[in-house]
Structure formats: C-alpha cells, structure tokens
C-alpha cells in the first residue's frame, strides 16, 4: 500500500484546497494517472498517482495541508491514522452532534449507541453526558422549594462565619404551666410559643442579635423583633414571621403561630407572611432530637433551635428526681457578637423558660 500525501507545492501557503478527485474512491488507478486537483493561492495543480492500485480516499474535499495524507493506493486496507471522530461537515453549516474526544472514548468503552447519544438532544456531547448514559442510577430533580432552600443555605454558609452555643433548660415547671396558660388563653401555648416570645423580648438588651451585617464593620439595628419560625407540616419548609413579637402579648403571638400552622397545612402563605424577619427560631420537636444547629438566614445575625424535651434523672433533695430538659441552640454571626454575648443572651432566654412565674406577671 502506498500513502498518497500532498507534496509541498510552493513556499507561500501552509494549506491548500482539495478541489476535486479525478478518480473515484475504490477505483483502480495506474501510476502517473491524474488523480486530484489541488488549488494553491496561485494556481490549481493536478497531482498524479504515485503507484498502481486501488484508490482509497481519505480527504474528499476542502482544506488540506502539505504532507497531509489524503489517500492510499494499493490493496483496499484501512489506513491507520486515528483522526478526530468523524463528523461530516454539513453544507448548510447545521451540525448534528459534536462528540468530544473524552466522550468518544467513553462511548466506545461502554459500547453506547450513537442513537442514545443523539437522544440526549445536545449539540455538544461531553464525557459527563456519556457518563450519565452509562450510569443506570436514576437522576432526580429536587422540587422548586427545596432548590430555593438550597440556595439560601449555601449563601448562608458562604457568607456568614457562624459560631454555635447550646444551653440546657429545665422546663419541668414550665411544662405544667403551659397547660394552664393554654386553657386561659384558649390557644395552644407550648415551649415553642414561649421561646418565640422569650427571644423577641431580648432585643432591648441584646440589639446586635437582631441586626443586619452591612460590611465594613457596620451593622444596621432592627426597629422591631420580627421572629421567623420554621414550620414544616410535610408540605415543605416555611418560615413565617411573627412581627413585633416583643410588643405583643404572649397569647397574640401564640395565636398567630397557630394561624401559621393552619396556613401551612393549606399551603397558602402570602409573601408578606414570610418577609421581614430579623432573627429565626427553628423547631425540632420530633421526639429524640437532642439538639440542632440552625442555619443563620442571610441578613440575620442569629438563629435559635429548640430541640425536643428530654426526661432526665437528676440528683435532688430527696435522692433522685426526674426532670424535663430541653436544649436551646444559638448559631450566631461571629463578626457581630462573641461567645460571651451569646451565652448571656441564651441565659436570659433560658431563665424565662425555666421560671414560669415570670409569664404570669
């Protein structure tokens, strides 16, 4: 078999145009037969066959370079020269699919048919596309609400250097009290409600925890305690806002939270229910949850978590006693407040939850 390469035809051009073949692919040709017309920048030149044999055309037309292999002459064997996966150029310029070399390698390795590749509906097929075809496991797209949540938590993680502190509160007495309170107020008042109110009431003493970080070492203080409370009744996570919870009475706060729970069940929150919080309380009341680290909402300085109530045996005056405890976590933006402020804040909240008499005053 003889290789037929384009000779260097002049000094100027580093490429020529293959205009036309004068013999057909597969035809028997004789040495000296005119074979192909090559156009240089100056002229069109006919090249002759260098040997007798069957013509196997490699390059049919178009751009070609000196030294390039354009055909073979001899027994009709494969010419070994792996080239870019052949995607025939289309006259119109419309392209079927482009397969990258890494993708091509994967296609071959997994024996994937071109039809399946085409079915991806993509113009450029990359390795990752082929991998998706080769992997039998299902790929699922998350619901919109979850994708939005994903954005929020990523932003929080990327932008807020958070620290975390947790305290344990003894709520044995409070648990009893909440029953009376609920009866009296004719709405459910539990630890969650007490915590929301307790947190809201701290703003006067701990204004920084309700602030917004502005950058450059500056924060903007809040004008009210607007507490976001996580509610997830199985229809997605919502964080409705109890506005001005510091200046409203406990029963009003409790009633609003109850309303929000109902709204969540109906799945009919309005935008304004969900806007304007400056601190958040996340509820983790599922039995057995000991403590939880909340995510600080972008724009907030702090987020609290309320875990489920635990039974604890503690040494008491007469031997041992069973107490009910709960852990309250505080994640805080460490640029704005330090561990000491966090501990003081949690301490104040804890006292309110532990000493139910205060609620009756």
């Amino acid at each position, binding site marked *: 078999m003889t290789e037929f390469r384009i000779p260097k035809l002049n000094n100027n051009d*580093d*490429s020529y*145009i293959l205009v036309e073949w004068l013999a057909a692919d597969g035809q028997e040709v004789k040495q000296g037969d005119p074979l192909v017309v090559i156009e240089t920048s100056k002229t069109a030149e006919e090249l002759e066959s260098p040997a007798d044999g069957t013509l196997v055309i490699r390059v049919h037309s178009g751009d070609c370079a000196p030294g390039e292999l354009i055909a073979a002459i001899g027994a009709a064997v494969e010419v070994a020269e792996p080239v870019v996966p052949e*995607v*025939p150029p*289309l006259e119109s*310029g419309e392209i079927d699919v*482009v397969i990258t070399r890494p993708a091509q390698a994967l296609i071959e390795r997994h024996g994937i048919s071109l039809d399946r590749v085409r079915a991806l509906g*993509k113009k450029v097929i990359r390795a990752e596309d082929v991998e998706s075809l080769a992997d039998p496991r299902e790929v699922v797209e998350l619901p919109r609400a979850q994708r939005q949540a994903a954005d929020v938590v990523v932003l929080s993680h990327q932008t807020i250097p958070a620290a975390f502190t947790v305290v344990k509160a003894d709520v044995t007495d409070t648990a009893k009290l909440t029953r009376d309170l609920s009866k009296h107020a004719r709405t459910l008042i539990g630890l969650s409600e007490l915590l929301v109110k307790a947190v809201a009431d701290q703003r006067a003493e701990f204004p920084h925890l309700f602030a917004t970080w502005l950058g450059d070492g500056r924060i903007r203080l809040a004008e009210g305690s607007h507490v976001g409370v996580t509610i997830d009744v199985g229809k997605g996570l919502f964080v409705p806002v109890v506005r001005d919870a510091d200046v409203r009475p406990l029963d009003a706060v409790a009633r609003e939270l109850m309303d929000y729970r109902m709204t969540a069940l109906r799945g009919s929150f309005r935008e304004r229910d969900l806007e304007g919080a400056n601190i958040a309380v996340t509820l983790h009341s599922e039995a057995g949850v000991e403590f939880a680290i909340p995510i600080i909402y972008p724009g907030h300085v702090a987020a609290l978590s309320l875990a489920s109530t635990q039974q604890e045996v503690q040494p008491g005056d007469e031997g041992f006693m069973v107490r009910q405890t709960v852990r309250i976590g505080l994640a805080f933006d460490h640029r704005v407040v330090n561990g000491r402020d966090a501990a003081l804040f949690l301490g104040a909240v804890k006292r309110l939850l532990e000493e139910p008499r205060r609620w009756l005053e």
Partner: protein
Amino acid sequence: MRVAEHLNRSLHTLMENDPSVHLLGEDVSDPYGGAFKITKGLSDRFGPRVMSTPLSEGGIVGVGAGLALAGDRAIVEIMFGDFATLAFDQLVNFAAKSTTMYGRRVDVPLIVRLPTGGRRGYGPTHSQSLQKHFIGVPGLSVYEMSPFHDAGRLFTEIFDSGRPAVFFEDKVLYTKPMLSGGDGLHTFEVRDGWAVIRAERDTEHVLLAPGGLTDRALAALRDLLLEDEIACTLLVPARLHPLDVTPVADVLAAARRVHVAEDGTAGGTWGAEVARLLHERLWGRLTAPITHISAPDSIIPTAAHLEARCTVQPADIRRAINT
C-alpha cells in the same frame, strides 16, 4: 474561494459598479497585479483608474485623500503594512482630522489597504501588525479582513461612512479559503459586521479576535472543544475601531470568561482597549479578569523557529483559555 481571490473579485466589482473608485499603490498594475496579487486584472480593465505609484507611501496616501476630498473614492495599497508609518502624518493629521477639524462633517472616502502580519518569514520590517497604532485616532476607522466577511460590503460601508479607514489584511489569510456555514464543529454566522463562530449557544467562554487570527483561533477552539471539553464562542469584528459590541451583546451577556487575542505586540494594544470596554460592560458577571493574548514585546525575527516564538500560535490561545 481563497481570501486573496475574494478580495480581488471584490475590488473588480467595486470598480465596475462605481466609476469614482480609484486605486493607487506600488506595483499594483498588470501584469504584476500587486505584491500579493490582490489587484490583478484591475489596471487592464479600468485603465487610468488604477495607478502604479512611486515608492512614496506618504505621498500616495495624500493623493488618495486629495481624490477623496475632490469627489472621488480612493483605495491606496501600501505594499507592506509596516510602511504605514510613512503615511502616518497623512492618515492621522490630514485624512482623519479633516473629517471634523473644519467645524463640519467633511467626507474623506479613503481606504488604505495594509497587507499585514508575520508567519511568512519576511523578517522584522515586513511582518509587524500595526493595528494598535491606529486605535483611537479621531476620525479614523480601523478594519481587518476576515474569511467570514464580504470585503466588497466592507469597502462600500467604509466609503459610505465618509470616514477614512485603514484596512488590515493578514498575509497568511490571503491563502486561506473564505468561510461560511460551518466547519463540522462550529456554525459561522455573520451579523452586523461580526462573525459569530460557535458550537453551542451561550458558552461560558468567549474569544474576541481580529480576522487575521481566524485560522489559529479555530484550531484552538477545536482542541478546546474536542480535547478539553471547553466550548468557546469566537467573535470576529470586521471593524476593530470604533468597536460596537451591541450586535453581539447576547453572546457577551452569557459569557463568564472573556479572552481577547491579537497579533500586535504587547503593550498599549487593541486588545487592551477591548478589555477595558468589556470590563465596564461585564463587570460583576465575569468570574475572572479578561485574558489577553498577544505577540510578545518583540520584533518579528526571520528564521521560522524564532518567528514562531514571536507570533501568536493556536497553543497560546488554547492555553490562555484553558487555565
């Protein structure tokens, strides 16, 4: 059809359609037809409207400006773009300034054609790319030939604008085919003076380059796509200055990485000006500063191995985009 032939045909058509068009240059007459054969057949056909001139680059650009001022349209060929420096006064102080310095619009329909660039071993005084020296000259447009753009339409556009223009023509590009449609990987689209070359819509990477870099940019794009799996859109403007990016605003809006390649030497370049313009436009949307690819700050040597070192190669473009 090759670019050289396309240019030649465009000039034939232009002179045939418009008897006011005159062409001057050294050795442009038949049978020689210009050092790069771009003017072949014109003097045989159009007689005295085609003039072979003495070696007087400044003089003939002045004559062209005079013809233009008096009501004709003039094309001046300077044999090698390097010699445009000899016509700098006529271009900058006369032709360009005259469009405005007399307090009203004065038309100077003048095109100065400049065979440009290295990669042919002509050595330091016959290989340079002087585009940057003509950027930001009040009243002067800077064009560059590309295999995508119809040269005849560009010539007409320049004449109709009434502004003089320098028209750079890459010497290696002369030997390349005109391009349309696509190349099997990319589609080629021409819109409002821009060629948009891409494999898919809304690519993260966008490369801007003048027409003379087309072959090298396409080679880089091919490797980037097939080997590195990076899709990059190539934008080729016909008019380098003033640069109007509005026709390709959609492509740029989708970009997160922008690269500018050019043949000129580093320092005070067209590409730097493009980067400035695009930084203003795209600031905040890009994930990295605009990458600039140019020849090094050097003369262009003659020996092929040295010359290759001092001219932009496809691998330079690929490397810049892929890092």
